[in-house]
């Protein structure tokens, strides 16, 4: 009997505790506001001590600019190149102190890192976000602390655009234009400028910004070339295996494919394998023209081997562009909200010469 009573008591206590917990969570607008006023107070006092130490620091290191960079992780060659670009730009010699944080693909790690940067009162915060959403609170904290935030690579989706100072990244739409323009030139050179050209596209993961930009870019340019015919578009989900599978299917449905546009290099590799398996040829000396995006190191190998015609770069070297923005901000100038990095087009005939100069 006693036990039963105890059990009920405990369960009642637990449910009320849970309900209370839920109640607290149900009005998050109040709770963070309170904690925020507290935290700003804290940072105020922290600021005073910090500014003192900072002044001392500045005297010692000759006014170096402290930059906190929160990186997604190291999941691909592209990402590694992105990281090393930042590291090689923000060096002590260039007058910077870089605080680097690897978030290992987790947003909570990034948020923690940004809070740390705020605590340490860095001069600039640079974030390569894992996801687009969920940044409002922590960016507001940075804004309250008066630290400019620069977003690189992926965009953030926040209610108020003033929460970040600028965004640096790739112009996927422009990449699409570049690919189509290169193709037009190439066909002209071959004397096929007015022939009917059959194109198939291996799209990236549907909804990814790279997929949307590159598809639309090519699509818009198609309007200027009425002799180009898009036979079909299908997603290869940015992977080599899927790219190969979809290309196999394309080759069976259509006999006379002239051009394959693969929205990243990996899918292009898969497509090349499928084309070869079907007994057709591709590349500069083959029947089918391969247009690809990203221009990773393996794509240069493929171009040197004569399989791929062109790869449009998706430049990971964001460091210099970010540094440019920071220098402008230091001088008190205003900067553009959106800053694209420069991206090149690398056709097969320049691949061999370009390969050694590539950083990724």
């Amino acid at each position, binding site marked *: 009997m006693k036990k039963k009573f105890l059990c009920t008591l405990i369960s009642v206590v637990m449910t009320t505790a849970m309900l209370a917990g839920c109640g607290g969570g149900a009005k998050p607008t109040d709770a963070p506001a309170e904690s925020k006023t507290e935290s700003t107070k804290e940072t105020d006092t922290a600021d005073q001590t910090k500014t003192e130490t900072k002044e001392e620091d500045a005297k010692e290191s000759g006014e170096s600019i402290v930059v906190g960079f929160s990186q997604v992780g190291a999941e*691909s060659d592209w990402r590694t190149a992105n990281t090393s670009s930042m590291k090689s730009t923000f060096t002590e010699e260039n007058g910077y102190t870089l605080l680097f944080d690897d978030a290992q693909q987790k947003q909570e790690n990034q948020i923690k890192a940004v809070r740390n940067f705020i605590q340490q009162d860095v001069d600039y915060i640079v974030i390569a976000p894992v996801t687009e959403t969920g940044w409002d609170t922590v960016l507001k904290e940075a804004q309250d602390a008066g630290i400019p935030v620069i977003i690189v690579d992926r965009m953030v989706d926040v209610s108020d655009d003033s929460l970040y100072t600028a965004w640096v990244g790739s112009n996927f739409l422009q990449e699409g234009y570049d690919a189509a323009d290169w193709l037009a030139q190439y066909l002209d050179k071959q004397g096929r400028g007015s022939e009917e050209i059959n194109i198939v596209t291996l799209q990236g993961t549907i909804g990814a910004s790279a997929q949307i930009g590159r598809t639309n870019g090519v699509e818009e340019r198609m309007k200027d070339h009425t002799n180009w015919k898009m036979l079909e578009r*299908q997603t290869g989900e940015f992977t*080599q295996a899927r790219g190969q599978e979809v290309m196999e299917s394309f080759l*069976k*449905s259509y006999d006379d494919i002239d051009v394959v546009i693969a929205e990243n290099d990996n899918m292009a590799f898969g497509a090349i394998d499928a084309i070869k398996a079907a007994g057709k040829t591709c590349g500069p000396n083959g029947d089918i023209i391969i247009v690809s995006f990203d221009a990773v190191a393996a794509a240069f190998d493929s171009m040197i081997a004569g399989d791929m015609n062109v790869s449009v770069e998706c430049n990971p070297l964001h460091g210099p562009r970010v540094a440019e923005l920071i220098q402008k901000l230091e001088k008190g100038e205003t900067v553009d909200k959106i800053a694209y990095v420069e991206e090149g087009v690398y056709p097969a005939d320049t691949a061999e010469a370009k390969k050694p100069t590539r950083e990724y």
Partner: protein
Amino acid sequence: MNKIKKITSYELFLPIMCFILVLLINVIKTPTFFEVSIKNGVFYGYIIDVINRASELVILAVGMTLVVASSGGTDISVGAVMSVAAALCCYILAGGQQTINAYQNPYVLGILLALVVGVVCGCFNGFLVAKMKIQPMVATLILFTAGRGIAQLITKGQITYIRVENYKLLGANIPGIPLPTTIFVVVIVVLITNIVLKKTALGLYIQSVGINAKASRLVGLKSSRIIFLTYVFCGLCAGIAGLMASSRIYSADANNIGLNMELDAILAVALGGNSLSGGKFTLLGSVIGAYTIQALTTTLYAMSVSADQLPVYKAIVVVIIVSLQSKEFKKIVRGLKDKKADGRKEEQVA
């Protein structure tokens, strides 16, 4: 009349019907689907694609069937284990480099160790499920999340390329043989598993443990060992599938190899008419289920369904197939039949 009843009551009747149904769509929509020609000395056609591309899924489904049958739970780590096996194999063959043109270590060593790592992962899952009595989905969730991390660690976050011609053989064609190598691997795996299950009492043991583990133990079966073994076998299957997937792209792409394949494998088991709560199972049902899934994908490609609508069509077909096989649906059909029969009897009486 009796003959029809005999056929329809055959346990593989529905899975086979569904498979044929998917293929029938093609007869109407894309008649070229069944054309098979010879190009470069190998068979070439949509049907060959289906059989070839389904290989990894079939092997995963074989392992998954036994896991489901013995423990009434699913192993959701198989996709991640595939990527670990592929990563290790490529790491060993490349000797830690990122891209190579000649093996740094013997081919057989890479393959063997990849299979061993598959078995080790299976042991880990089996230990958690059979000995620690953790819910299968929770236990395998550990490797589901950690597996890709391990694979990333092995490959140092980069794609490791093995640019050696004979590494591609497993995922392509051996010169002189007109069928893809994967088909032979699948036949061997399915045959051996089937023979072992049918010729020894193992199949029966797995079934009885799945139906009632406690009762089986009282009868004298080591229930936990049987469950353990099925997980180990499932790990081995994942290892084989991982090697195939890696050979197809002659590289180890830790992020993408086997991505979401665990879900397809579970679906294959369900499409095969197996109950996901364990017990009675048919291996061939799962195999047919796996081919059905791939046939559906290839069919949709052949029909030029646009990429953004692809998942919708897939979902519709899967819902139809699963509900066709559900017990409730069978009950309704039986009810209708009975009513008809009653009506006829009444007519006769009148």
